């Protein structure tokens, strides 16, 4: 079920009313309702893949319970390995099997051998990269004794499949989300209202910004060799806003929806395009994934401790793995590699934690220096996006070659003026609200109720009138 579909518009109020009016007296019933609702939400795509979530949840539940009383180190390790094997195994099979098979053949072809390797027609289950990481983090935390495993099977299954964030995150940690399933939840008016606002802003970002960028981006990237450098520049800038609007919009809807049920999900985006360097960008972009890799890959590898070579190695590992997580294509690995190259110099000169606050804190406008820093960070991010969006690494290089040719100085043949204007307005709104959790957090303005209602109403009508053609969320493919 898509958040921006009529089905979800019917589904959400029904679940909400059942949750707060029918099963509100009993926590277990509330959790059971969330579990059933989550399975309906997921099964709407393809009910067959529900078995994967159920199996993955069952394994991690069993691993958790078994780890609780297990003192033997070898057995504990074996239990953890079971969880890793099952989760990464699923991911490896459904997402990476054909990639490895094809590259295996290519590698042998170089040496004149032509091995027969089966290429399977595998459908990628929606959200598999998200829920496997979420459930994996539970097993790892329990293994590390950072988290007491639960015996409440319904709560655990509901935690793994919690519908607001099931298919595209934020990737939650058991330490944050699971305890919320144990506590009695009382309706909080302010939280619910803010959740609604966040949903509205997420829908705006997705439907008005991202979906309107999509056709231009698809056309330019599919036929890049027909266009001038200036048009390709427009293409990659539009893609930067498409992917931001799409993914952060999804996160906003997910967080807002969870708040309606009195759950707090972690923040996933913090205005990343207002970053002054790439390290700040990575603290603000897809926070739940970056912090997952930090906690479960980077730190166990030694993090930034140790010598220079170990720092370099760890940085490359985390960025390459992060790139590969996005998809079974060398383009994503290249994207990770480029970001590692951007990030590494900052880390080596110990400048990677220079900007921890908001840009131009307490000021209306940024300084000239900050403005150029943000522009440069956005620009280099766009260069990396070319690799992310292209069909192959060769295409990405070709794209950049044309983009940086003399035709960059010509008038672009595709210049969607109205869309560019709406993106500028969107950036301005986000700039004004950059110290808030989301751009529609307007209670500090103390606006009269009629104005607030007018604003919400106008936003909804804008979404209905100027929304692009419905597109799936980009991150569903990951």
């Amino acid at each position: 079920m898509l958040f921006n579909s009529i089905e979800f518009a019917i589904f959400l109020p029904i679940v909400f009313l059942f949750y707060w009016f029918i099963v509100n007296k009993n926590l277990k019933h509330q959790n059971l309702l969330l579990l059933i609702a989550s399975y309906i939400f997921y099964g709407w795509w393809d009910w067959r893949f529900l078995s994967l979530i159920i199996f993955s949840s069952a394994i991690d539940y069993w691993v958790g319970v078994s780890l609780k009383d297990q003192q033997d180190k070898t057995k504990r390790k074996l239990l953890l390995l079971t969880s890793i094997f099952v989760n990464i195994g699923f991911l490896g099979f459904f997402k990476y099997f054909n990639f490895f098979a094809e590259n295996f053949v290519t590698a042998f072809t170089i040496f004149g051998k032509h091995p027969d390797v089966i290429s399977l027609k595998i459908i990628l289950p929606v959200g598999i990269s998200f829920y496997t990481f979420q459930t994996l983090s539970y097993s790892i935390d329990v293994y590390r004794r950072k988290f007491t495993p639960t015996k409440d099977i319904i709560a655990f299954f509901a935690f793994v499949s919690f519908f607001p964030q099931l298919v595209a995150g934020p990737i939650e940690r058991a330490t944050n989300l699971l305890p919320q399933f144990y506590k009695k939840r009382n309706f909080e008016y302010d939280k619910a209202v803010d959740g609604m606002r966040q949903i509205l802003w997420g829908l705006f970002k997705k439907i008005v910004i991202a979906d309107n960028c999509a056709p231009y981006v698809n056309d330019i990237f599919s036929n890049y060799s027909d266009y001038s450098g200036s048009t390709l520049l427009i293409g990659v800038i539009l893609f930067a806003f498409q992917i931001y609007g799409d993914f952060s919009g999804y996160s906003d809807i997910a967080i807002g929806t969870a708040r309606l049920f009195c759950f707090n999900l972690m923040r996933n985006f913090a205005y990343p395009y207002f970053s002054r360097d790439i390290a700040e960008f990575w603290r603000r972009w897809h926070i739940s994934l970056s912090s997952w890799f930090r906690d479960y890959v980077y730190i166990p590898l030694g993090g930034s401790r140790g010598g220079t070579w170990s720092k370099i190695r760890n940085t490359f590992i985390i960025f390459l793995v992060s790139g590969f997580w996005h998809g079974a294509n060398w383009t994503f690995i290249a994207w990770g590699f480029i970001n590692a190259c951007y990030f590494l110099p900052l880390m080596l000169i110990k400048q990677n934690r220079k900007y921890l606050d908001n840009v131009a804190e307490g000021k209306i406008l940024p300084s000239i220096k900050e403005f150029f820093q943000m522009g440069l960070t956005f620009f280099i991010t766009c260069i990396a996006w070319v690799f992310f969006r292209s069909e192959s690494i060769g295409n990405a290089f070709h794209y950049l070659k044309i983009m940086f040719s003399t035709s960059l100085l010509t008038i672009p043949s595709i210049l969607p003026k109205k869309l560019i204007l709406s993106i500028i307005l969107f950036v301005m709104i986000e700039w004004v609200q950059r110290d808030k959790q989301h751009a529609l957090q307007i209670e500090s303005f103390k606006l009269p109720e009629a104005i607030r209602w007018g604003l919400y109403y106008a936003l909804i009508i804008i979404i209905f009138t100027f929304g692009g053609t419905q597109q799936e969320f980009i991150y569903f493919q990951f």
Partner: protein
Amino acid sequence: MRKFILKTFSMLVLICTTLIIIVLIPPNENLYLAEIKEKTELLNSIKSPRIILAGGSNLAFGIDSKKIEFEIGLPVINMGLHAGTGLKFFLDNIKPYIGKDDILIISLEYSQFYNNNIYGGGPLIEVLNFVPEEINNLNVKQLKAIFKYFFEFIKWKNMSIIKEILNREGGVYSKGSFNKYGDVIAHLNLESQDISKESILNNCDKINYESFKYLNNFFKYVENNGAKAYVSFPCIPQTQYMKSLNKIEEIYEIFQENSFNLISTPNQYVFPDNFFFNTVYHLTQKGRNIRTEIIINDIKKILK
């Protein structure tokens, strides 16, 4: 909680009221799809025997009905409008008007035989805005399509209202583009556009045999009413034909296996790419003239 429900419900009522008003506002009568009323009126007013051309926009943008009328000596009604309304809709629309000795030439875009395209998409709900009474003839699958495209429809309606207020012309996609036979003529002197990025079978992966079954029943209905129906094929660019050759051949074979009255073969209607105006099915003046000649010959053969 009460306060939250009350406020959310109030906003919902406000939005729903707005949406209902948007739906009920009379549609902009200058839009392309508004032509459905004129076309239906032609069916109603011109007496049988007639030649009725049925299909999507490949007919609207690809036939010179006046020339056919002159050459054959029978009145011609070009019912081609939009493939997106689905073949079930546009054939259902013709059904009540079929009279004795009518000749129906059905020319369907190839996508009509794939996925659920027989039941239409966004354009179906848009065209219903002009002929709301037709909603009674829709089946569950068509209603499902309407449900799916409801938000798209609201967007379309809002934009059409804005265009009407701003008095913006719709270019070739306006009601004024049609002649009295139902042919689009506004594009004939315009320069053709790049169609190389288009595809005749975009997102068409699974043949839907329901389309053939429906068509078969329609043919029987036509015969029972003393008329005759024939299948012709739409014009497509050479490059597209080569790209989709296997699928086109598969469709043709199904037609042959089911003994449909075929008056042509798909390859008769494969034209050079520069004969197309703005999509892979819309012809330029030159392409339109050649297609009309071929179809006249086809009709002459069946009249012998």
